[in-house]
């Protein structure tokens, strides 16, 4: 079927669709893009009054700031562990629900439910579980081990990883379930006829078809891993144990001292790092998943 060639009609559609986008575009420009430009500018001047251009010296100062380095290290460590774990475990859940097990839709509901439970509602249970005299330590001691004061030790990040996985696995699992269902059946049938085992099929066929979803889940989990501050704040308040001191804590403190230069430099640096990571992921997906895309 040919599309309508009527130029007048097309023009009307174009104008209408531009008008539809306009309110959103204005909002994004006013609240995000233009002020972000100002943030970039602020990151390169010495202070808002004299406005002297100082190049990258705010960034260099940031790298000699111990609080920033600690926050970046903790946040980086948390993301580096929790994001791959989230990927592997949610894929495992999705593969598991692909099998012939009873009550599949109930399991889907159970795994997805933490997404819709407010973090603040259940934070007390997590505190009870990981308290010095709490449930986990009681179990450990029951089997003859030695408990640790989780929230006040270098193991504190383990609690965060548990909370992060609990909340986010369901969403990723749904993405993987949809992607698994979208793999062409005939390819898998041919592979089966040719004698390919389940494991071979998974690693050599399914994973390739899943690569766009894998990249998306990686990006999404990374974004969500930066929201872990919520959990830390609810568990420990303003002043957590050092290992739980996150980038958002650093930002809060810098906001409190109204140090715009430091704040701007940190925000711009963070944005740049994010863009580089996302670009690398997208490019590697293009290389890895090229031959299965039509």
């Amino acid at each position: 079927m040919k599309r309508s060639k009527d130029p007048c009609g097309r023009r009307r559609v174009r104008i209408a669709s531009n008008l539809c986008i306009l309110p959103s575009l204005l909002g994004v420009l006013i609240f995000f893009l233009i002020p972000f430009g100002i943030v970039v500018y602020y990151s390169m001047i010495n202070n808002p009054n004299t406005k002297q251009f100082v190049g990258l010296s705010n960034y260099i100062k940031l790298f000699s700031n111990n609080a920033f380095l600690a926050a970046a290290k903790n946040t980086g460590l948390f993301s580096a562990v929790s994001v791959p774990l989230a990927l592997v475990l949610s894929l495992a859940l999705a593969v598991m629900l692909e099998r012939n097990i009873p009550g599949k839709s109930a399991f889907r509901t159970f795994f997805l439910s933490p997404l819709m439970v407010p973090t603040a509602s259940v934070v007390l249970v997590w505190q009870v579980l990981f308290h010095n005299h709490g449930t986990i330590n009681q179990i450990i001691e029951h089997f003859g081990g030695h408990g640790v004061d989780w929230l006040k030790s270098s193991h504190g990040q383990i609690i965060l990883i548990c909370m992060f996985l609990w909340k986010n696995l369901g969403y990723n699992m749904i993405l993987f379930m949809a992607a698994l269902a979208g793999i062409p059946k005939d390819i898998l049938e041919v592979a089966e006829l040719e004698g390919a085992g389940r494991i071979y099929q998974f690693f050599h066929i399914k994973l390739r078809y899943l690569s766009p979803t894998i990249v998306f889940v990686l990006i999404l989990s990374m974004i969500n891993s930066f929201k872990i501050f919520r959990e830390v704040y609810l568990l420990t308040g303003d002043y957590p144990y050092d290992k739980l001191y996150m980038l958002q804590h650093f930002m809060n403190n810098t906001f409190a001292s109204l140090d715009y230069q430091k704040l701007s430099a940190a925000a711009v640096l963070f944005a740049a790092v994010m863009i580089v990571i996302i670009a690398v992921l997208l490019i590697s997906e293009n290389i890895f998943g090229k031959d299965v895309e039509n």
Partner: protein
Amino acid sequence: MTRLKRRRAGDAVCTVVAILAAFLFLMPTVLTIANSFMTSSEIAANYGAMFSNMTDDKKVFISENVNLKFIPDKVTLDQYKAVLLKSPDYLMKFWNSVILTVPITFFQLLVAVFASYGFARSKGKIKAIIFFAYIILMLMPYQVTLVPNFLVAEFIKTTITNIFYPNGQIPNGLANMRWAIILPGIFSPFSIFLLTKAMKRIPVAYTEAARLDGAGELQILFRIYLPLCRGALVSVAMLVFIDFWNMVEQPLILMKDANYHPLSVFLSQINTGDVGLAFAVGVVYMVPTILMFLYGEDDLVEGITYSGGIKG
């Protein structure tokens, strides 16, 4: 034959693992609900060790260890009575959450419905660039976006104060900074991303047919696009709602007056407050989102499915 047997054994193992996983996923929620029906003395006995800074001689009354219990000794609604009737503070904070989250969800969807229609209905180089910018913005964490938000909020506040209230007496509506959270929230591009993807799935033939029958652009949007995207709309509404219902970062930075903080922030101070009520407050706080989940789970799943993949 052996292959079939092996597969059956695998299924059995998977079922067991799934049941164990389901237990872990449900436990925090179920425990919170179960504990909300305990008497305050039982809570004190079970969890007193966590929160009290009592001297040692007083500690004999409460157990040294923290006992996590699934089933209350005595089921009571006392906690709920206390939260709903006797402690207006919690209800005020709940209301603070509502008055921030509901406008953000409603207006973000309104803006997004039109914008996504614009992106899905006609293509062009500039639109593709704008959409890509939206995706990048969507992927930016709060640590990046809050700095611009803060600058704009300060700018708006000082400008309005200088023009309209030069004596410095600014009205409450401006001083409480709710708008500073709501306005950027409305233009957050997440729902546009998801709705555009859902709308792009609608076959061009539908709109062509409607146009031939004389339908205008608004009619096409409201009579064809929106009904076909119902699942995605419900899903976006739920995801936006829960994200802002959980908010912690924005109020901490943008709102200086803790009286206007939402319950999601206030609940962290429960350690120093009344522990006996914390579980009931937690349950009250999860009621809206749990109801949404039970009512709209299928739509939610459909919407999440649309969100997969940055491209196309």
